[in-house]
């Protein structure tokens, strides 16, 4: 963004935080930050902020049973608002009675936000939230746990079979833990994590230099398949894919080629264990 080797602009720092720089540019910024601790602290805050913001809003990227109704209301140019009292005039008598009951209930406890969900008959939806938020959740998990020294995992690699059984049970999906030793990574352990609000599993790996990778698995209600996708933020790369009921995400702060090899290897091994189980 600027040619002068000695100058680093706000634009450069933003691009650094947003992970859109080449490795050479990153190295230049990092060198500069070493000599400018105040700006380095600022960059650290920006990075933490980004993680916090993503985590804060991730849960909202979900489908809702009334999305289709939302669309048909909107298509009719109907100005109905989600609050029950404003929805009521557009509904039949029976529905108005339900809405009235709900409004009473909502007044005391909720905000009324969920009331129309019970009023819609057509509940068929196809969530895309998993594909959308999986890499973000994987990156948050990586950033939080990969830097943990003592509590990076709940169950260590020494209890590998217990780990697979336990997490498989919570995920409600038989599970085998990928062996990445051919790529120089050994298992550190695993933990239970919320993924899209349900139980998910994370495995952590480490190479000889302490470089870490995580493999995240979460339920995918959508039950479809996707190709490999890549998502990077703040220099953290994630390969992710969805295979029927499970979404997978492989995350690390390593070169993309290496991460792809890891993702390929995981995919191959998950496929194989799938095949032997079914």
């Amino acid at each position, binding site marked *: 963004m600027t040619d002068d080797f000695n100058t680093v602009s706000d634009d450069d720092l933003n691009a650094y*935080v*947003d992970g859109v720089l080449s490795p050479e540019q990153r190295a230049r910024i990092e060198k500069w930050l070493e000599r400018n601790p105040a700006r380095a602290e600022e960059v650290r*805050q920006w990075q933490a902020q980004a993680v916090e*913001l993503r985590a804060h*809003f991730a849960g*909202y990227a979900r489908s809702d049973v009334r999305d289709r109704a939302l669309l048909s209301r*909107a298509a009719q140019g109907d100005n109905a608002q989600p609050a029950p009292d404003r929805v009521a005039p557009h509904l039949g008598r029976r529905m108005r009675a339900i809405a009235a009951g709900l409004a009473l209930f909502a007044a005391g406890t909720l905000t009324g*936000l969920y009331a129309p969900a019970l009023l819609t008959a057509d509940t068929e939806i196809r969530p*895309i939230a998993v594909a959308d938020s999986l890499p973000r959740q994987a990156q948050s998990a990586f950033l939080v746990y990969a830097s943990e020294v003592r509590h990076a995992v709940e169950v260590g690699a020494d209890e590998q079979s217990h780990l697979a059984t336990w997490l498989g049970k919570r995920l409600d999906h038989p599970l085998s833990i990928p062996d990445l030793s051919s790529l120089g990574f050994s298992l550190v352990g695993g933990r239970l994590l919320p993924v899209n609000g349900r139980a998910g599993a994370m495995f952590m790996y480490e190479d000889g230099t302490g470089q870490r990778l995580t493999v995240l698995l979460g339920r995918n209600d959508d039950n479809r398949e996707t190709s490999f996708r890549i998502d990077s933020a703040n220099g953290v790369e994630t390969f992710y894919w969805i295979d029927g009921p499970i979404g997978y995400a492989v995350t690390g702060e390593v070169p993309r080629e290496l991460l792809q090899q890891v993702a390929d290897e995981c995919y191959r091994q998950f496929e194989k264990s799938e095949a032997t189980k079914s």
Partner: protein
Amino acid sequence: MSQSRNGDDEDAGEHPASDRFEEDVLALVPALRRYARSLVRSDPDGEDLLQDCVEKVLSRRAQWRGVNLRAWAFTIMTNLGRNRHRYVAMHPQVALDEDLGLQAEDRESDPLERSRLERALNGLSPENRSVLMLVVIEGYRYQDVAEMMAIPIGTVMSRLSRARRQLAEAMKDDNVISMRRPK
């Protein structure tokens, strides 16, 4: 993996009234819901904004140029969010209702942390806030944001810096003086 899901795959003929365009919009709703919520003060307000946006997307369908529906819908949402912000600023009683909504919200994460971040975000201008959300949460490139908001890329960058600094500053203040109560 043979659990059957009712009609997940062949829904083409199931909803004769809705067409491909509406299906595409429907698929965007989760992302739009998140973006809407990231621009406003409360959950009900987010759902409200989402509804306004979906309505506008459908009614302006003829104006869509056929490329990148997602970016187009996000642009519409950005503008609606800015208008709403102005409206709320002029009608304080609306803001009061929304604050009630925020308190009624019950999530598993630390509510204090959540409201701390929300307060800091509410201090941002709507322009700076949208740029921050489009880049950080929605993952748009700077150039995309410039096109979506019809502003020069330099403006995107300065808004982004300003949003980040202001947010960091607000969070810092909040750490030192935590006497303000949510109610």
